[in-house]
């Protein structure tokens, strides 16, 4: 399954979208290091026009959690 959020992660991490799912996290994706995390925050904020708090950024340890955080801000993907 691919959707906008998976595609955003695939773009920023430069990996194939089919290799990602909501369980993907920094331990399962080689490219997801601390610098990638920084790029992801910027991309998520730009793409979905949201502002993330530091607490939310620190919580985002999997794609599924990002989806939940975004849903909490009224962004459904």
């Amino acid at each position, binding site marked *: 399954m691919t959707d906008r959020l998976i595609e955003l992660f695939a773009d920023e991490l430069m990996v194939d979208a089919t290799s990602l799912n909501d369980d993907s996290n920094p331990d399962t994706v080689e490219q997801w290091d601390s610098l990638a995390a*920084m*790029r992801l925050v910027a*991309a998520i904020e730009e793409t979905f026009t949201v502002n993330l708090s*530091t607490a939310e950024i620190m919580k985002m340890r999997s794609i599924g959690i990002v989806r939940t955080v975004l849903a909490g801000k009224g962004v459904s993907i």
Partner: protein
Amino acid sequence: MDVVGAKKRWRDHLRSSAGVDADITIGLSASFTIDPVIPFLGAALVDERYASPDIRNADYNQVVQTCLNPQAAFGVVPDIIAIAFRLEDIAPAGDPDALEAAAAIILDAIDRLRRSFDGAIICALPPRPDAVTFGLARFAHPEPALSAWHRTTARLLERFGALDRFYFLDLDAIIAELGTAARDERKRLLYRQPYAEAFYLKAGFFLGRIIRARTFEAKKCLVLDCDNTLWGGVIGEDGIGGVQIGEDFPGSAFREFQRQAKALRDAGVFLALSTKNNPGDVWPVFDSHDGMILRRSDISVAKINWRPKSENLKEIAAELNIGLDALVFVDDSPFEIAEVETHAPQVTCLQAPKELSELPGLLRAHAHLWDRLVITDDDRKRVERMQGELDRRSLAQQLTEEDFLAQLGLKVFIYQPDKADLARVTQLINKTNQFNVATKRYAQEEVDAFIAARGNRLYCMSVSDKFGEYGLVGVAMIEGEGAAWKIDNFLMSCRVLGRGVETTLLAKIATDAAAAGARAVNAVYLPTLKNGLVVDLFKRHGFSHAGDIDTGGDRWRLKLPSTLNKPDYVELVDQRPA
């Protein structure tokens, strides 16, 4: 250039250019997180017709090391090295003497780089440091750090300002222009990335323009059509009284366009004509029309005829003894533009816009075509060649990397942990991903149990230098019984990379093991997704390969006694820092 569009262009470019040889390699090294500039610099370079730029990044806060050994920092010697440092990153706030001392070391290192490196250097002027005081004090009693900043900027400008192959990027000007939008406090605290995307966008864009200006020669000649480009109407039909050029619209649009062409001429750009008219009609306008800005004497070469314009352009280039790619051609006719693009594709073509109000903006919109860095390579080449020879001769006497590290006054403290250290030890064990040979994670009670077991030792390492303390940054867990000691876990914070402190810890372990009567130190390297940094750690320290591990990884063995010693420039202290 916008944030999302630039990132997308760079990403698309990376996908489509995988495996293509780079046509320019750029190395970035900064005291703060600089990675976010890469897509913006990349997009700027791709927009400037670089086919395949390769942008590399040195490790975080390793500016001096980069200057002393760029090949080690980037893996290759780049064509261009860009350096950025902030005073608050290189020394503790509030200590202006330490600040200036730290800045002096960086300036010396930049000087060393300049002498040993053949490519171009772009050095960012450091941004004004954040004020530590606030309220009225901040405005009425500026801190000593501010003087240190002014002096450092002045020294950079004095020392490197007049050099060939050396350019500045004024980050403070970018920050001032963006105001509060330049900063992002969340990213500063989370990632040591003090600035917002908007800042990196601008920095990347200007870096790209500097690089373009030094690589591509500025255009040298502007070739102009006449009817409906320099004036409104057709001179052959409307006559000298009928063409539109002057103070009132539509003539004013043409007049402004001429004024800009004249400004280019005054800045050293040749002007030429390629126009399908009778010479007898055209010259009287230049000679006697009141509305004209350009005069016959401003035109270096005129091709007034009915031949294909591409042929005229080739002749103009030949007569001026410049390349065809140094020409910019402006015409209102899409047909003429297409003819030139087909038969003289090296020429840069600009179509005069149909909407007249856009004509005055045409040359301004393409101002980068004439971009010239204030000091060109040609200007200084002769001086530089002579200076270069002198510099090479004295290079042997210059600062080496060891000298630099010696100047730092590194102290490494190696000791067994107290109760109070265990929380930090456990945190390092569980958080360190890169400099971690075995990546064994232990909960605090497991660490307690490890230490309590017979023969086991846990080494803590703290580091300081003359600029300040790094705290507890390294842990080694050792099973120290019998004829061979075993390194169970060995890890270090990346904050102290590049200083030889890991060598100090390994040497301490080897020395202790030998003193206890052991004949070898055994270790394993277990690869993870993140720890490629230490794949050859043991090899570099004289361990020999003692076999592969079936599940991945290698066994290593150091025979004792060994020659493994701490670096001379490190002072080893066998106790916790006071």
